[in-house]
């Protein structure tokens, strides 16, 4: 989410301007005033503690006003002390700061008031924190501690469903229990699906203000303190399904019957790691498929986050790992240096970096091509050849006498096969059969008499051998030509990335990309323009921790078939198809 209005105050720049003017009219230091106001706002939003705020300005205030009338740090700490006992973050999320006093009031108002659950009013209880944060254009999540989440680049997703399969594999979920769900959709009035990229990747959003958690009558659905994951305690859940009802995204899957894979089997599968892929660090059963009668959903892989699979798996999820175009970026949404936040900061660059990874011709390939043209490197020593195959070139050079028999890396049999392949590909020789081609090859390699084949064929064979070399050389030239014509190849993209990264002279030659604005253009042309970001159903107030890059589905968007069907990867799309088998008296009709 971006904001054009960089004002620190929710009422915006205008208000800020007025404030400044007001302060200018007084005899006091308006800069100090503004700075204090700014930080005071951070205190309201919880980014700064009151004690810190006090500390920061005490001296300034004394100097400016001669007296500091604000409540003292000691008084503040006393107040803090009184508020202890906010057991879990869940409670904090619901009750905000004034918890103690609210509890008191509630006690006084008696059971009746408690039954109405005054604590449930989000608008009352989230207090100025959420509201200010929202008005500010902040992401609104809790900004303290770790909050795991994802940035998913929908424009990179190719709908292969690898993540769906990986999640199923990781968690041993039943058919149709698609914790991860990927769907293509169509907007009304758009005839051709896929005309623009309309795709959604839908794990649980691990909402900061998760309604599923709020409505749960047992606290089975809870937020884990240490990393903000929204999990279900399978040992506590009573299977009322209210969380499923309250979640606006439809990410929950109830375990309607005995799961296909037993806990013993799951334990067995993970016998080589710490833990059993079910119980997390706190000894609560929150991971893998749910047992019968309780609720499940995407967990964001707590077993990995707790290091049970080894430290290298921390900060990863199974779906992320499985995603070929790396569309899923998992990490701490509160850490500006985390994978998702870095991705978000420069979508185009990161996207380009990943797209170009392992692609050719890259900078080194272009450099090599230049080197060849300048005679600094032999054809056979080149790593990258656009047109031509190492073995064929070796064979051709050998036949042309440019290569000693001692320097051959191929044995006789291989050599002969390769030569036959070359000859077989030549148009002029297409009428010859395998045996005739063999004879020609033998002649070329000096193992047969020239008279064994007719002269035209021999000439054509020599031409074919020459063509191998000329084609390869032309290919090298072509790499340089393309580079110099500034066609966008991986080399140009790499250069652009390096330039934007501040590198001094990353280009292979001056004919490449050498200035920032071209570099930016290259990246945008290659990886797509600056993409918009959104969160799903943000207006519902769940404060989701998944941020999407790409098109946001409209209210009337409707799912259409994607490039890969769930059945293609051995999964089931509609769970009801599976469940209907157990229904007693499936009338085949619907209300």
């Amino acid at each position, binding site marked *: 989410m971006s904001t054009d209005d960089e004002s620190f105050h929710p009422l915006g720049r205008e208000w800020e301007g007025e404030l400044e003017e007001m302060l200018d009219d007084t005899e006091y230091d308006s800069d100090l005033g503004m700075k204090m106001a700014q930080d005071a706002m951070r205190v309201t939003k919880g980014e700064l503690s009151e004690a810190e705020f006090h500390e920061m300005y005490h001296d300034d205030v004394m100097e400016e006003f001669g007296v500091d009338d604000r409540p003292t740090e000691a008084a503040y700490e006393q107040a803090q002390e009184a508020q202890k006992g906010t057991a879990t973050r*869940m409670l904090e999320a619901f*009750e905000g700061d004034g918890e103690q006093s609210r509890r008191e009031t509630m006690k006084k108002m008696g059971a009746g008031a*408690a*039954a*109405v*659950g*005054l*604590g*449930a009013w989000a608008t009352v209880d989230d207090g100025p924190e959420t509201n200010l944060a929202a008005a500010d254009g902040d992401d609104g999540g809790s900004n303290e501690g770790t909050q795991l989440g994802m940035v998913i680049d929908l424009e990179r997703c190719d709908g292969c469903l690898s993540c769906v399969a990986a999640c199923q594999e990781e968690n041993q979920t039943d058919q*149709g229990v698609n914790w991860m*769900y990927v*769907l293509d*959709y169509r907007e009304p009035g758009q005839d051709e699906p896929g005309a623009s990229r309309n795709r*959604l990747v839908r794990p649980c959003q691990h909402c900061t203000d998760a*309604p599923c958690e709020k*409505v749960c*009558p*047992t*606290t089975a659905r809870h937020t884990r303190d240490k990393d903000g994951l929204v999990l279900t305690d399978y040992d*506590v*859940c*009573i*299977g*009322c*399904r209210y969380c*499923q*009802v*309250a979640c*606006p*995204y*439809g*990410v*929950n899957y*109830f*375990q*309607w*019957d005995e799961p296909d894979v037993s806990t013993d089997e799951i334990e067995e599968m993970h016998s080589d790691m710490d833990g059993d892929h079910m119980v997390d660090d706190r000894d609560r059963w929150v991971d893998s498929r749910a047992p*019968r*009668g*309780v*609720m499940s959903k995407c967990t964001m892989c707590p077993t990995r986050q707790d290091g049970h699979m080894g430290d290298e798996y921390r900060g990863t999820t199974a779906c992320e790992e499985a995603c070929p175009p790396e569309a899923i970026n998992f990490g701490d949404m509160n850490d500006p240096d985390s994978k998702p936040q870095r991705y978000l900061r420069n979508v185009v660059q990161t996207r380009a970096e990943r797209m170009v990874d392992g692609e050719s011709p890259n900078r080194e390939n272009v450099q090599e091509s230049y080197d060849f043209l300048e005679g600094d490197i032999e054809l056979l020593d080149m790593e990258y050849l656009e047109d031509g195959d190492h073995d064929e070139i070796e064979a051709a050079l050998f036949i042309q006498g440019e290569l000693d028999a001692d320097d051959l890396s191929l044995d006789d049999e291989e050599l002969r096969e390769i030569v036959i392949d070359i000859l077989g590909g030549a148009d002029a020789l297409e009428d010859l059969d395998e045996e005739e081609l063999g004879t020609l090859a033998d002649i070329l390699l000096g193992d047969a008499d020239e008279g064994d084949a007719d002269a035209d064929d021999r000439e054509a064979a020599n031409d074919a051998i020459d063509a191998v070399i000329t084609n390869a050389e032309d290919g090298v030239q072509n790499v340089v030509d393309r580079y110099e014509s500034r066609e966008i190849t991986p080399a140009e993209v790499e250069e652009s990335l390096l330039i934007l990264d501040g590198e001094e002279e990353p280009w292979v030659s001056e004919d490449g990309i050498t200035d920032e604005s071209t570099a930016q253009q290259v990246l945008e042309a290659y990886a797509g323009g600056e993409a918009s970001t959104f969160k*799903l*159903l943000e207006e*519902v*107030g769940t404060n989701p921790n998944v941020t999407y890059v790409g098109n946001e589905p409209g209210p009337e968007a*409707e*799912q259409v078939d994607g490039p890969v069907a769930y059945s293609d990867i051995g999964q089931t799309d*509609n*769970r*009801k198809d599976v*469940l209907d088998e*157990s*229904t*007693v*008296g*499936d*009338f*085949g009709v*619907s*209300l």
Partner: protein
Amino acid sequence: MSTKSPTEADILRPVNNVSKKFFMLFGASALALGIFLVAWMYQLANGMAVTGLSDWGSGGGVTWGLYIGAFIWWVGIAHGGIILSAAVRLLGMDRYMPVARLAELLTIAGLSAAGFYILVHMGRPDRMVTSVLGHYHITVNNSPLVWDVTVITAYFVLTATYLALTLRYDITRLRDQLPDHFEPVYKVMTLGYTKDEDEVVERMVWWLALAIIIMAPLLLHGGVIPWLFAVLPGMPAWFSAVQGPQFLTIALTSAISGVIIVAYAFRRAYDWDHIMTDDVFRGLLLWLGFFCLLFLWLQLQQNVVGLFAAPVDTFVAQEATLSHWAYLLSMGLVFGTLAYIFAQTIRPSLFTKARAIGAALLVLTATLLEKLLFVVEGFMHPTFEIYANTPGEYFPSVIEWLSLLGTIGMVVLVFLVVSKVVPVVELHAVEHLRGDHGHGHDDADDAATESEVKA
């Protein structure tokens, strides 16, 4: 119409007589309940997959269905019952005194059925106590489901207290004519009774009634039950401020209908024409008409707001509801009943007891349908309706249908059993009908009632 004067013997008749018909009805009800219990065992053994439910979203179904719809329906009947009885006491609507206790019993029975439905609906009913009570201090702050359980329990206790208090009075006075084999029950119920408490009890009952009337719209069926749904912004079919009043009118129509049916059954079985007079039924029918009107009025509100220029998601949900056969049928039934009730007030000859029963049955069918559809529609048209599998499909499985049969059997059983132990008509009512009541009521009112009885 009977001209005989009601006596203690009249109201004791159910306690002291058993007929073959009684046993037959008892057997049928027990069988109905029994069948469902077996079905429930099957569900417990095989998981909730035996129902027609599924996950909403990619799961192509609805996650709450008939169990929850019937739960609200029973709670509605129960809550309406207690409101009715409280109103009778509070507003001195003495005419309805003979059916007040039946309404209270309907509340107890209805709440039991509703409570049973909660268990039946759960994936892990065995954890109800540990998981819910164990975290009650936290969850009561924010889970509407916990508010529901709290309030239902509170009302159960309240109603039971209310019943127990008024029963002490009756049992003490009628003890000699009550069967001896229930002696221990009567002993417990009248523990420490003294005549002095009558006045205190009467005042207590009045305050309890006041509490019920005040809390009904705030907490009961106008409050926490609809909030279960109305507070969820992701489900536009539910997210509405009119849900509370709507639930309340549905509760009241259902409860009045329930009372009409139960009262009629008792009247027929025990020749209580002179106690539950036609006049009582006419009056109940009129109230039924009044609440049917409110019911339709609130539906109109929701339709107009949801269809005129509503946000896309609300519009889609409302349009789907309005064009659903079950909704149209339900509204049609209520409208038809309303038309009949108004017609019979203008032309009293249109009134017959059979028609009154018919009206009550139609309304109960309509409210059950409405509740069922209400629950299901929420999942069919959520805000996030992007999934191809949404709207999903749902039709209650055999086991779910059996639950209706089972709970109806259960409620009938409650009446059958209770009517064998204690009088289901208050002694006060009889005394009142005879005109020998000891407490000061408006004489004009009494005279009117009496003349009506004689008419």
